[in-house]
C-alpha cells in the first residue's frame, strides 16, 4: 500500500515536472568555452537568471572545447543540426552569415548604442552577432626594464615609432639579460597570427585584402608597404630579436621567467603577469607609419538560421547584455567590458585600474579584421605566409603566393557576395 502511494506520488511529480517544462520552450545553445570553469560559471549564472526571469523560454547550454568548436559548428551545419543560439569568433561571423547558417539578431539597437565597435558584428549592414566583451593586445613589459634600458615610456598620444621600437629591442638584446628581446607569440599558431600580426602589416600601410572591394589582395598584401612589413618581420628573427620556433611553454611562462624583455600579448593573460610582476606595464602598439593598430573583436553571440524561435534566442542575448554580466566576465577572466558603464563596475578597467589601459587601447587603436566571408581562408593563408617568412622564405615570392591563393579563393567563391 505504501508502495502504491509512493508510486502515485512519483507519477504526480513527474507530471508536474513535465508540465512545467512544457510551459517554457527549450532553446539550445552552443558555447566554445568548455574546460574554463570561471567562464562556465558566469554563463551558467546568466542562463539561470534568464530562465527564472520569464516563463516563455528555457535555455540549455552545451560546451565545446575551443579548438574543436568551429569544426563542430561546420559539421553541425552540414548535418542541419545547429542549436538556436551559438557563439562565434568575430571575424568568422561573415562566413557563417554568408553561408546561411546564421540570421540577423532581433535586438533593439538602443541596447548596444554605447558598445565599443569591436564586439558589434555587422555583415551586409545587419547585426548578426554581439559580444559581451572585447579583447586587446599590448606590448607587455616591466617599468623596471624600461628604466634599466633607458627607454621612453610610449603613450597613446605618442606611441613608439618603428625606429624607437627597434632601438628598444636592440637595447634589450645588447643588455644580454634576456634570451630574446621580443616574444611575438610564435607558439600560438592559428588565429593568433592574423589577429596579432596583421595589425603590424596594417600599420605599415598594407592589409590582408583590399577592403574597398574585398575582391583582391593584389597590391595590398604584396605591395611596397607589405614587402617592407615582410622584410621587417623577417629581420626580427634573422637578427636574433625573436625566435621563429617557440616552445608553447615559453609562450605561457617565458615572460614571467624573465626570458623576454617585451611580449606581444593579450589582456586575457594580463592578470597573471600583473600578479607575477606588479610593475608590469602595457604599452600601445608601435606606429610603423600608418598609425598604431591592434586587432579587435572576440567571441560573440548569434542566432542560427535554422532556429525555430529566433525571437527567444534574441531575447536571451539581449538579456545577457546587462552591465552586471559584462562586468562579471571582465572580473572573472580579465576581458575588456564593451561599455564604459560596465568598465566602471570592474576592478581592473575602472578609472585608474591596472588594466584600464586596454580599454583605451581598444578605443584608440582597434581595427577589425577584414569583414568578409573569405576571411576564414585568408587567415590561414596569412598565417602560413608569416610562418614561412619568419623561417627565412623569400618575402616577395611568399607574399605573391599568398595573394594568388587568396585571389583564387575569392574567384572560386564568386566574390563572396561583395
Amino acid at each position, binding site marked *: 500500500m505504501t508502495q502504491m502511494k509512493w508510486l502515485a506520488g512519483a507519477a504526480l511529480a513527474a507530471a508536474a515536472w513535465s508540465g512545467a517544462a512544457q510551459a517554457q520552450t527549450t532553446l539550445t545553445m552552443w558555447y566554445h568555452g568548455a574546460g574554463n570553469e570561471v567562464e562556465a560559471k558566469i554563463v551558467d549564472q546568466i542562463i539561470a537568471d534568464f530562465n527564472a526571469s520569464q516563463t516563455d523560454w528555457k535555455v540549455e547550454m552545451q560546451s565545446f572545447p575551443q579548438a574543436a568548436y568551429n569544426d563542430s559548428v561546420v559539421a553541425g551545419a552540414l548535418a542541419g543540426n545547429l542549436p538556436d543560439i551559438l557563439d562565434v569568433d568575430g571575424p568568422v561571423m561573415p562566413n557563417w552569415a554568408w553561408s546561411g547558417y546564421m540570421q540577423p539578431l532581433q535586438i533593439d539597437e538602443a541596447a548596444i548604442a554605447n558598445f565599443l565597435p569591436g564586439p558589434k558584428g555587422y555583415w551586409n549592414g545587419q547585426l548578426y552577432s554581439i559580444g559581451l566583451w572585447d579583447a586587446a593586445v599590448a606590448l607587455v613589459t616591466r617599468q623596471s626594464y624600461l628604466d634599466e634600458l633607458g627607454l621612453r615610456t610610449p603613450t597613446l598620444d605618442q606611441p613608439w615609432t618603428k625606429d624607437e621600437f627597434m632601438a628598444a629591442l636592440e637595447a634589450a638584446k645588447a643588455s644580454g639579460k634576456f634570451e630574446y628581446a621580443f616574444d611575438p607569440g610564435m607558439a600560438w599558431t592559428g588565429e593568433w597570427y592574423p589577429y596579432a600580426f596583421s595589425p603590424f602589416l596594417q600599420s605599415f600601410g598594407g592589409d590582408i585584402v583590399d577592403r574597398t572591394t574585398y575582391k583582391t589582395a593584389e597590391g595590398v598584401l604584396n605591395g611596397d608597404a607589405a614587402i617592407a612589413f615582410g622584410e621587417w618581420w623577417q629581420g626580427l628573427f634573422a637578427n636574433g630579436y625573436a625566435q621563429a620556433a617557440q616552445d608553447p611553454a615559453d609562450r605561457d611562462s617565458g615572460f614571467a621567467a624573465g626570458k623576454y624583455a617585451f611580449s606581444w600579448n593579450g589582456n586575457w593573460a594580463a592578470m597573471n603577469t600583473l600578479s607575477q610582476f606588479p610593475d608590469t606595464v602595457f604599452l600601445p602598439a608601435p606606429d610603423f607609419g600608418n598609425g598604431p593598430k591592434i586587432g579587435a573583436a572576440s567571441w560573440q553571440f548569434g542566432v542560427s538560421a535554422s532556429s525555430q524561435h529566433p525571437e527567444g534566442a534574441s531575447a536571451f542575448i539581449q538579456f545577457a547584455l546587462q552591465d552586471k554580466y559584462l562586468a562579471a566576465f571582465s572580473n572573472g577572466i580579465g576581458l575588456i567590458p564593451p561599455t564604459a558603464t560596465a568598465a566602471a563596475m570592474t576592478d581592473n578597467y575602472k578609472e585608474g585600474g591596472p588594466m584600464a589601459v586596454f580599454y583605451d587601447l581598444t578605443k584608440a587603436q582597434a581595427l577589425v579584421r577584414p569583414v568578409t566571408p573569405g576571411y576564414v581562408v585568408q587567415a590561414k593563408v596569412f598565417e*602560413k605566409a608569416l610562418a614561412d617568412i619568419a623561417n627565412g622564405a623569400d618575402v616577395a615570392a611568399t607574399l605573391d603566393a599568398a595573394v594568388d591563393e587568396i585571389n583564387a*579563393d575569392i574567384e572560386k567563391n564568386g566574390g563572396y557576395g561583395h
Partner: protein
Amino acid sequence: MSSKFQRSNRAGWVMAGPAAVLIAGFVILPFFFAIALSFTNQRLISPNPTEFVGLANYRQLLGMAVLTVDPVTDDAGQVVMKDGAPEYPSLRSLTRNNPDYPHLQGMREWSSFDWGQSRVYILARDVVFLTAIVNTFIFVIIVAPVQAGLALGLALLINQRMRGINIFRAFYFMPVVVSIVVVSLLWRFIYDGDSGLLNNLLGAISFGAIPPVDWLGNPSTALGAIIAMSIWQAVGFHMVIWLSGLQTISPTLYEAGAIEGASKWQTFRYITWPGLRNTAVLVLIVITMQAFALFAQIDVMTNGGPLDSTQTIVFQAIERGYGKQDISGGSAISVILFVIVLSISLIQRWLTRERT
C-alpha cells in the same frame, strides 16, 4: 533442389551483408564522390551552386613550365655583373602581370639552374603541392625498406623459444596499440629544441659537444625526425606479420638444413627467405600504402612546416578540403594520390609476380 554450395553461398552473403553495406557507404561511395567532385568547384559550405569546371583543379595542382632567362645586358650589350655573377631579371617581373608571358601568370620558382650564360627556371603553379609529393615519396622510399627490414630483424629475434619472450613481443608491439596522436604528442616533447629528451641524451653522451637541435623547427631535420618516429611507431605491427610468416615455415626444413650442416646465413637465405616470399609482398604493399597516407604525425607535430619541409599529399588534401573549405581541390588531390598508389601497387605486384 539447390546444391550445398549455393545454399552456403546465400548464408555467406547474409553474413557479409552488413560489412558490404558499410564498405559501400563509407568507402566506395565517397571514392566515386571524390572523383566526381574533383571536376567541379564544390565548396564545403557555400550558397553558390556547384559548377562543372573540367580539369581546372588538376591544371592548378600540376601545372608546370620551363622558362629560360638571359642575363641583363647594358646598352653596349655587355652582361651586367652583380657580386661576381651575371644579373638576371627578377622572376617576379616576368610572372606577375607581364603581358609578354600570360601563360606564366601566377607561377612560381620550383627550382632553377644555370645553363651556359642563361638561367633555366622550372616553374610550378602550385609549389606547395609539388613539395608535398616529393616529401611523400622521400618518406615512402625511406620508410618502406627500413621499416620492413627492422620488422623482419625483430621478428627473427623474438621467433625463438625462450623464457619471457612474450614480454619482448609486448614491448615491441606497444607503440602500435597506442593512438598515433598520443605517440606524436610524446615525440614532440622528445624532439623539443631546448629541453627535449633527445637533445638531453645527445648532450649527455657527448658531454655537451653536440649542441641542442630544434629537430622539428629546422627545415633540414624535420622530415627526418618524422620518418624516424614513424618507423619506430609501426615497426611492431609489421613484426607481427613477419612472425606469422616465420611460423608457417615447417620446422622439418630447418632440421633438414641442420643435418646438412647449413650455416646460419645459408639457413636464412635458402629456407627462411623463400618461405617468407608471400609475407614480404604483403608487408611491402601495406607499408607503402600506409606511408602514402602520412597525416596524423604531420598534423600534430609540424603542420607541414617549417618552410613546407614536411608537407605531405594527404595533409594537403585535408588542409584544403576541410581547413580551406575547398572540397573540389581536396578531392582532386585524393584522386591524384589514388592514381599514384594504384600504379605503384601494380608495379610492385608485377615485380614480385610468380615467375613460372
